[in-house]
Every structure is written in C-alpha cells, then in structure tokens.
C-alpha cells in the first residue's frame, strides 16, 4: 500500500424518512457516495471540494469510522477501514461539526485534556500536549474559561485544537474556517501549512474554491457522491485551457441565464448570488466573438449589467464546466 489513504470504490447508501403530513412519512433511499476511489499521498494537503450536500462529509464520516460504508474498501494510515477501526481512530485527528463537538460547560483546557484521555494519553502527556497547542494557537487568554463564553470563532479554534490533541499523522478538517473571521481563518490556514511542513498529511474539505486553490496540493471535486475531477490545481485549471470565462454581475433572471446557455459557442452558464446581485459565469471557446451576442441576449431579457469581466479560470469554473452548477448550490437530498 503506497498512499496514506487509499479508497477503492466506496459507496454509501442509507434510508431516510420524508414527512408527508402529520402522521405520514415516506422512506427514501439516498445514494450519498457512488463508487469513490482515490489515493492520498503522505505529506500532501488534499482538498475535497464540492457544494453542500455533495458527499464530502459522508466520505469523511466513513473514513473516520462514524459511518459504515455500504460497499468498497479503504485503508487509512495502513489500517483497514472496517477491520482496524480503533487503530484508525487513534491515528487520525479530526475536526468535524466545528463548535458542536465541544462541552460548553467545561473550559477549553478541560475539553482538551478530556479528549486527550479518550486518546489514551497519560495525565501528564495530555496536560503537556494541551499546553503546547494552547500556546501554538494563542488560546492562552481563553483556555481556562467555560466554552459557553467563547465567540463562535473561538469555539471553532478550540475545535481545531482538539483535533491536534493526539498528534496524529493524518488530519481531517471538515470546513475548518466556517464562521471564522478573515484574520482567524488566515491564521488557521497558516497553522495547517506549518503542520503539513512538519510532516502531517491533511484532508481539507471546503466549498470555498479560493481556499482550496491556496491550501491544497491536490483537489478532488465531488458532486452528488461522485468524484468528478482529481488532480493538482494547475492541472484541473488546464483541463479548461481552451475555454475563456466571462463573469457578469447585475440583475439577471433565470430565463436570461437559460437564453445565454442556449447561445452557440457557450459551453456552460451558471448563476451565483453575490452581494445581493447575481453573478453569471459563462464559459465559451471564443469570448471575443461571444461578447456582443451575450450583451444583446441579456438586454433582450431586461438584464441590468453592472460589471462584465473576462477572468482567469478558477476551480469553481472547473466545477461549473463539469456540472453546470456553482459551488453555492445546495445539492443535499431534501
């Protein structure tokens, strides 16, 4: 086995109930993962990028043994997913559910030493490790206060600290910068980079493409339980190298967007809400030739255009090219 994580054809289906009234409900089968295969090399920061409901968290829950996969196999840190589940949990540091995974009546330090005990560290080792992490993440001022008095960002930081308590060779971070303000998010990303430099492998899930671009050595783009694209960021962008991207911001109706999609030469058109407006992303082979027709079509549909910019290809564009949707779309099964 070469990779630190190797996943072969992993599937996960489960039953869910949909309420149909006061006493009625209907059972529904959800295919959360559809044959996911990938390998993560030691020492890399591997990004899982996809919209909400894409299957990122389900994949992480399977890899951390919280969920049993329906079929397929995986090896994590050399341990088999279903046969060696205790060893996997011992050798993975995981930040999942953010601030919800903390005991709010306890202090930050009490939380860390408690989880240290559950990773079987002896009392002196867990206190020492907690002190090290508190110092590294600059949590000294709040470490001895009850978590219920923390701000949302401070709770997220503590949840990240908790993931480091067992000093695991593999860190799995699920949307770690959610609810963090910009400076705190930057600081956390810097620590993740430092930890990676020290030899830790990191799986980093996000739905923010800029974060995936700056953080990750390689990225898997996931949607509706499937890996749509896998590679390093330049490779993924290069897969669209014949295409140009035009972004238009303003008031643009769904009908206008559909009309743009139908224009000859347009390979994809998708809208995202941005600052109370709509941003229309259009991909085309020849944007010079397309632009006049694009403006003409949008005008015909009474669109108000505030900004038109041809831009560089981003990971989000890769996602749009593969799915026809943006990362802001929620694809959770309702």
């Amino acid at each position, binding site marked *: 086995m070469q990779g630190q994580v190797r996943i072969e054809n992993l599937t996960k289906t*489960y*039953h*869910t109930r949909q309420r149909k009234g006061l006493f009625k409900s209907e059972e529904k089968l959800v295919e959360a993962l559809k044959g996911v295969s990938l390998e993560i090399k030691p020492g890399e920061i591997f990004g899982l990028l996809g919209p909400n409901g894409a299957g990122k968290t389900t994949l992480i*829950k399977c890899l*951390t*043994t*919280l*969920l*049993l996969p*329906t079929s397929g196999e995986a090896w994590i840190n050399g341990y088999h997913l279903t046969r060696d589940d*205790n*060893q996997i*949990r*011992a*050798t*993975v540091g*995981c930040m*999942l*559910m953010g601030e*919800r*995974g*903390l*005991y*709010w*009546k*306890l202090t930050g330090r*009490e939380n860390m*030493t*408690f*989880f240290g*005990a*559950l*990773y*079987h*560290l*002896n*009392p002196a*080792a867990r206190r020492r*490790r907690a002190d090290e992490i508190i110092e590294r993440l600059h949590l000294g001022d709040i470490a001895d206060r*009850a978590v219920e008095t923390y701000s949302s960002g401070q709770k997220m930081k503590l949840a990240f600290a*908790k993931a480091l308590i*067992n*000093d*695991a*060779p593999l860190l799995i971070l699920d949307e770690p910068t959610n609810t963090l303000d910009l400076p705190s998010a930057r600081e956390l990303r810097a620590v993740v980079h430092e930890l990676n430099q020290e030899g830790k492998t990191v799986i980093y899930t996000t739905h923010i493409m800029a974060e995936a671009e700056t953080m990750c050595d390689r990225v898997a783009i996931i949607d509706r339980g499937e890996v749509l694209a896998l590679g390093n960021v330049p490779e993924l962008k290069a897969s669209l190298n014949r295409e140009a991207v035009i972004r238009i911001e303003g008031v643009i109706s769904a009908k206008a967007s559909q009309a743009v999609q139908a224009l000859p030469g347009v390979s994809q058109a998708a809208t995202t809400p941005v600052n109370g407006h709509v941003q229309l992303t259009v991909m085309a082979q020849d944007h010079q030739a397309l632009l006049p027709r694009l403006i003409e079509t949008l005008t015909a549909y009474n669109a108000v255009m505030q900004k038109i910019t041809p831009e560089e290809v981003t990971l989000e564009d890769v996602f749009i090219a593969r799915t026809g949707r943006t990362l802001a779309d929620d694809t959770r099964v309702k």
Partner: protein
Amino acid sequence: MATITHPTFGQKLSAMLAETRLRLLNISRYPGQLVLEIIIPVVFASMPMLLGRATAGADAGANFAANTGTANYVAFLLIGSNVFTLVSNAFWHIAYWLRFEQETGTLEAIYLTPTSSLNLAAGVAVYSAIRGLTAAILSYIIGCLVFQVNPLQGDVLLALAFIFVGLIPLYGVAFLFGALVLKVKESNALVSLMQWVVSFLMGIFFPITVLPPFIRFVALLFPPTWITNGVRSSLLGVGFFFGQWYFDMAVLWAFLLFAPLFSFWVFNRVERNVKANEGVGEF
C-alpha cells in the same frame, strides 16, 4: 509524541474515569440540581406517609406491620423512594447521556476517539452511581432525621451489599435501554414510561406480595425489585423472597452476570445498525 494504537488496561481505565470526571465536573456547575436530588425522595416518601397517618392515625404502624412485616413504615417508604432515585438516575443518566450528546454534537466527537462506547458507558455509569448513591444515602439519613426514626437499624452492611451488587445489573438494563434510545431517538417519553413501570413493579410504597400473582412474577424479573426488598429485609426485617439473604443475593448475582453481557451484545448490534445507516450523530 506517538499515537497509541494498542492501549493497555490502565489506559482504558483512565479513559473511562475521564468520562466519569467530565460528568462530575459538568454537574458540579449545577449545584441546585444536586440539592434537589437529596430533597425530592424525602418529599416523595412523605406523601404516602402522611396519607397513612391521616387514614390510620395512631394505628398506622400496627396496620402496616400486619401486611409488610415491619411497623416502621417511615423507613420502609424512605428506602423505596431512595432506591427509586437510584433506578431513575440509572435510566435517565444512561439514556439521556446518549440523547443529549447526540443533540449537542458531542456524541460524534467521542465516537471519533479510539475509546469504545462500552468504556464510555461504564464511565457514565460510575458517575451516575456516585451521584445517585450519594443523593440516596443523604436523602435517607435526612428523611430519618425529619421523621425521627433510626437510620442505622438492622444490618447496614448487608443492605449496602444488596445495593452495590444490584447496581451492576441495574446499569446493564439501563444500557439496554440506551440502545433503544440510540435507535428510536426518543429519550424523554421512553425513560418516563420505563421509570414509572419499574417503580410500580419494584414496590416503592408497598411490598410486592400485595400484587396479583402474574404481575408479581413480572416484578421479580427486574433487578430493582430485588434490591429494594434486599435493603428493606436487611434493615427492617420484612423478609427475603427466598427466606435467606444469600438466596436473594444469588439471584442478584445471576442478574449481574447476565444483564450487562446481554445489554452490551444488544447495544453493539444497534450501534452497528445505526452506523450502517444514518450514523450515531443524526438526531
């Protein structure tokens, strides 16, 4: 620092006690609740006690002795209400532990660690037993002082032995109940139902000999019935079910050997089933 993939028995024990310590730390931040736990069993027992005095007057003790084997109805009722506190705590603490952690999100957090759910449940059971026993003993002493009866009559050590041996199968049954809560995700209604059924069957305020034969048989299938009668017989001499204390104790030992193993087996199956579907954190 190396990760520990094969913990020793001592390290597992330390993880279990960390769970106990966490619970004790947490409850220490709610002192009012602890005080209430000592007062409520006394209030609970005083209601039938005062009703008895109102209806039977000075003959209350004699009438009570004719049916129960002891005239000390004050201690009889206090023992019933305090053993009920222990039983109620066991069900609430185990079932509510799972449900509360599910709702707050910490259940997934602890399931991410290599400490087994059995170990964690044992930690919660130790905490619950410490809290329940402390409250029950203090409440019994206060109740005896308030109603002016001697709390240290009879064989106190034997009474304690019945409680300690009985606690293990009691938590075994509670753990079985926890498995049900994990699956159906409904703790309040289930625990309320269960605690009142058990409280009726164990005879908080009456000897189970007054129950109809079939219900008496069902009552004898629950460890709390044997704990209550064992304590009452040790302290008040109401009579063991099988005549001698060691026969009744042997029944509790049989429960002790069977109930935890059976519960753990059921819990493991439910846990696996839940993990194969929506996961332990879904609520």
